[in-house]
């Protein structure tokens, strides 16, 4: 009987049924995916240590002994401490005027309350250390570093039985982290939402596989369907890291307007833009990103100036649920998000389609069922 092509070394490592990892900011999605036989990682970069501890307790109450992960965005660089103060001294008037012109043209309402600009920007390593302390104390089954190299925490994590995954955008980063001893490496391609590496998923994954040895490689960036899962395994990956598809699930706490936009979007409805924060990130196109791409637009400001400009647009749009203005980070795989399904159905659909893909290639029926 043919082997189950979806049973990989990642499944053995984590004790999961399917090599599908959901990255999400929603606890309900974590619980649903884990209980459906996949694996899920909760993004906690913006949360306080107390909130992280509470979320871990909440998840454990719903998944029991099944494993799950917590993701933090460990910073990898930071400007000198006095730079922010210098920056905040003022935003050029031409830029303020351009932002005002967008606000007038699109009749963007004022935010209902004070702008929710969180101060945690990764510039304070002390906060990151406090977040990490919670991960260690709670002995979370898996810690994933969504950006920086987690090498410094590996020994302490492993001593507590915590597995550590690193997410990278370049092969040399992968080599550095694999050499340090991470338990798995997430190779993220340019197709991904938010911050991405410069290399496409179809190249970065086999590049990293070639140097990974026995370390499982997880493919990220544009992965949305069972065909993507099958392709990733064919590239040598041991699993997939998925994000955008979960935003539109029934359990997701995303606004219904955002879910509808995700379902309607095509790949080229995403844009890799600096206009939101001053940093490049992939998001759904919206009037804000469109206006800043026009020839008459001033040069996008560095962070945090640009975020100070865009926050009025973002919060005004969200507070008043203006469908024509709202946007979300989304990867190019959004083209394949075509319904608001329960998260467990997304898992099962991916599995079924991946198996059908393999069976179509080999002409054999796997023993997965």
């Amino acid at each position, binding site marked *: 009987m043919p082997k189950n092509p979806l049973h990989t070394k990642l499944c053995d490592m984590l004790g999961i049924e399917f090599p599908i990892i959901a990255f999400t*900011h929603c606890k309900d999605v974590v619980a649903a995916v884990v209980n459906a036989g996949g694996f899920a990682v909760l*993004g906690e*970069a*913006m949360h306080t240590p107390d909130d992280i501890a509470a979320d871990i307790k909440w998840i454990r109450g719903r998944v029991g002994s099944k494993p799950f992960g917590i993701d933090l*965005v460990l*910073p*990898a*660089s*930071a*400007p*000198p401490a006095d*730079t922010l103060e*210098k*920056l905040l001294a003022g935003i050029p008037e031409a830029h303020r005027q351009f932002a005002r012109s967008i606000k007038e043209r699109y009749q963007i309402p004022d935010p209902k309350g004070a702008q*929710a*600009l*969180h101060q*945690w*920007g*990764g*510039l304070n*390593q*002390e906060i990151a*250390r*406090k977040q*990490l*302390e919670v991960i*260690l104390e709670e002995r979370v089954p898996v810690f994933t570093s*969504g*950006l*920086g*190299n*987690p090498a*410094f*925490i590996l*020994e*302490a994590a492993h001593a507590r039985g915590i597995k550590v995954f690193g997410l990278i*955008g*370049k092969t040399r*980063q992968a080599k*550095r982290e694999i050499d340090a001893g991470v338990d798995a490496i997430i190779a993220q391609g340019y197709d991904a939402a*938010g*911050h*991405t*590496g410069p290399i496409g998923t179809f190249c970065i994954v086999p590049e990293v596989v070639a140097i990974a040895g026995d370390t499982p490689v997880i493919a990220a960036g544009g992965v949305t369907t069972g065909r993507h899962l099958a392709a990733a395994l064919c590239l040598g990956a041991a699993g997939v890291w998925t994000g955008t598809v979960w935003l539109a699930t029934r359990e997701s706490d995303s606004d219904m307007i955002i879910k509808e936009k995700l379902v309607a979007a095509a790949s080229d409805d995403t844009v890799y833009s*600096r206009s*939101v*924060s*001053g*940093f*490049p*990130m992939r998001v759904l196109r919206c009037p804000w990103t469109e206006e800043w791409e026009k020839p008459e637009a001033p040069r*996008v*400001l*560095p*962070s*945090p100036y640009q*975020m100070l400009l865009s*926050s009025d647009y973002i919060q005004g749009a969200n507070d008043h649920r203006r469908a024509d203005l709202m946007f979300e*980070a989304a990867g190019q795989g959004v083209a394949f998000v075509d319904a608001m399904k329960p998260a467990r159905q997304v898992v099962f659909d991916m599995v079924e389609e991946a198996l059908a893909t393999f069976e179509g290639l080999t002409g054999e029926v796997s023993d997965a069922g």
Partner: protein
Amino acid sequence: MQANPTASRAGFDVTVAGRRAECDGGGPIAGTRFATREEFAGTLTGEYVDHGDPPWRWYLMVNLVRRPDGYPSDAVWCESGNLFFLEE
């Protein structure tokens, strides 16, 4: 782990002072739940800060010959695990 796992200590590492390096940097974006990647290249001064225990080492890079468009300084702190020496 030490009593204060987040305490920081500054120091100087003569073995990296003056060496040219690249930093695959980035970090969370203030005001959002997202992050970004940023690339730098320059010269390490040798100054470092260890954050917490086990030490999380950051080196100071100056004389930047590569930095993100609009980056507002000629210096950047780089996490040691994301530094790549150009002479290697």
